[in-house]
């Protein structure tokens, strides 16, 4: 039995060495991240994070004109996102993007090949809300890409980002790919960062489905933030 086990473990080791296991890490926690936010949170980035790809496809189904799908669609997403987050954290402070986008864009490493790109506050400078208060924890939403049949490795694995996907005639899923950082605003350090992906099967696509997509995303963010705590 032990012999069998050792054979298995050798096989596993060979498998690891030759790289047949999927080795992406999509989340990264700071060693000092010991407590997930509870009750209150601040959020920034939601004014500019949302992007809808395949405008025509969405415009047709959501019955919004192609010219205004980006504006109206993303506004809907942004409002849903804030509403949904408010349901979870009673005391939600929405900080204008400009409070954070004034800092230079940097990349945050999650994995050997996965890097998040986004604005991160300078060391020693706390973000303030419109009232001038300093919220202790800020959820920075870097990017929220909505499209069809998207894969996050094509966006965040630097070895794959130049790959062009073939045109797909009939999409199977509406996808959302979003990257975010839970920012310790008092000590100015990233507590938790992640890239998430949601696939939502398409039957008929209406605005309610888009609302649902954002709701699932918020739930996923909350779950990840909670699970990312370093015990």
């Amino acid at each position: 039995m032990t012999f069998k086990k050792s054979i298995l473990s050798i096989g596993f080791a060979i498998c690891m060495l030759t790289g047949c296991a999927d080795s992406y890490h999509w989340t990264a926690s700071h060693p000092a991240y010991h407590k997930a936010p509870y009750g209150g949170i601040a959020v920034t980035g939601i004014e500019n994070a949302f992007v809808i790809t395949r405008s025509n496809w969405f415009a047709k189904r959501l019955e919004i004109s192609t010219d205004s799908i980006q504006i109206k669609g993303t506004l809907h997403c942004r409002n849903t996102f804030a509403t949904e987050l408010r349901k979870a954290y009673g005391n939600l402070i929405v900080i204008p993007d400009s409070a954070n986008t004034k800092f230079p864009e940097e990349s945050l490493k999650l994995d050997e090949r996965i890097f998040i790109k986004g604005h991160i506050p300078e060391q020693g400078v706390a973000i303030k809300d419109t009232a001038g208060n300093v919220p202790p924890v800020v959820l920075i939403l870097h990017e929220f890409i909505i499209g069809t049949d998207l894969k996050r490795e094509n966006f965040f694995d630097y070895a794959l980002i130049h790959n062009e996907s073939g045109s797909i005639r009939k999409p199977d899923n509406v996808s959302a790919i979003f990257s975010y950082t839970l920012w310790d605003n008092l000590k100015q350090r990233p507590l938790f960062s992640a890239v998430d992906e949601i696939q939502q099967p398409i039957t008929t696509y209406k605005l309610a489905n888009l609302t649902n997509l954002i709701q699932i995303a918020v739930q996923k963010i909350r779950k990840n933030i909670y699970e990312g705590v370093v015990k």
Partner: protein
Amino acid sequence: MKKLLAILLFLVAFASASEVFFDSRFTLWKDATILIWSLDGNSPISTNEFCLSLRRNNTGIGEPKCRELGEWERDTIATRYGSWLSNNLEKGLPSSYLRARHPGMAAKIQVLEDNIVLFLAPQGKFIQVAVFDETAQEPKAAGIVKANSDKIALGDDIAATFFDKRTKRRLTKEERLKMQTEPDDLYKEVPNLKIWAGVGVGFSQAHFPLTPDNWTSSHTKSRVKNYRATKDSVSLWNFIDDADPFLSLYAGLTWHGFIGIEFMYRYSNRNMKIDHSDTVYKELDHWDFGQHDIGLNVLLSMTYPITPWLDITPLFFLGFQYSFYVEDIELKKGVKEPSRAYKYRIKFEDLYKGALVGIGGQFVFKKHYGVDLRMGISSRGRDLYEAPSPDAGAAATTIGKSTIDCFVSLGLEYHWTL
């Protein structure tokens, strides 16, 4: 009560001790320039006294110079990073999490040249200490020392905790410039062809170390009676000595540092295992065989430059060899006519074929002078498969059909590259 007091005393002693969170061995220069960076411009130590503390605690430090780092104290970017560092410096946090992200701050650290920045920030009963040099955008060492209003004692504490190490001579401007443009010592192109030749000594034996004796005892304990009789004749070790030193000469070459071939020759002298209780040997003066092995190995190797003067090449080899035996036999003086048994004594095959397999390593000093260590297994025998012939039953048994031994060897080599 006493126990409680002891625990309290222990806790106090523990709390008062200075503590190093991490120290990644920054270079401490002789006659170092230490720049003391405190956030509010109000340094908890005195610059002059700190220099004296350094000299008291480290005799090798020469004549250090200390000054306050006013240009960082007045700078917004540095002050922000400094207060952030003070806020984030925690025990157990790896130094990479303390990296200065702001490009302006990174640039400031990069132009420090060989000056050392000593960051000091009071935090309650302690002073946070971090040491920066030009090589990294994060502190090279960090920790805490107990706060002390006595600036001399505090300086001594810091000097003893963070600056108590071997010093190096500071380079002149020209030397620094030269260092920057100097090629990497360990940079080396893999030569297309590497050739070596060497002489070695070794030892081979039939019994494999760490294996039970009874695996080989039927061969090793065998004795030859009447010039030809043994229990069995499958191995040559039934007839001749199975543990002897050998001498080897060899030369080889490696292509592109990876695959190579090697020609080798080995000689060893093997005495016959005669049964001395047999009276027939009374006429015999000596009887032994010179064993000559000629072989060709294929090598797979990889060279690792360890220091500028030493390369280590672990290697694996697999090859074949031909062995032949030259008999040396003589009767005692005065014996005129040898016995009948002598005339019909055992004869070995003209030639034995075999294989070699093993591992080894070449340690090449100063690019040319090598020391070579090898260990492996070798075999000698006849073809295992022979076409059946009608008179197979009548043919004599082949002596030494399967002869296996293991060996270790040490060689001295000279290497060339082409």
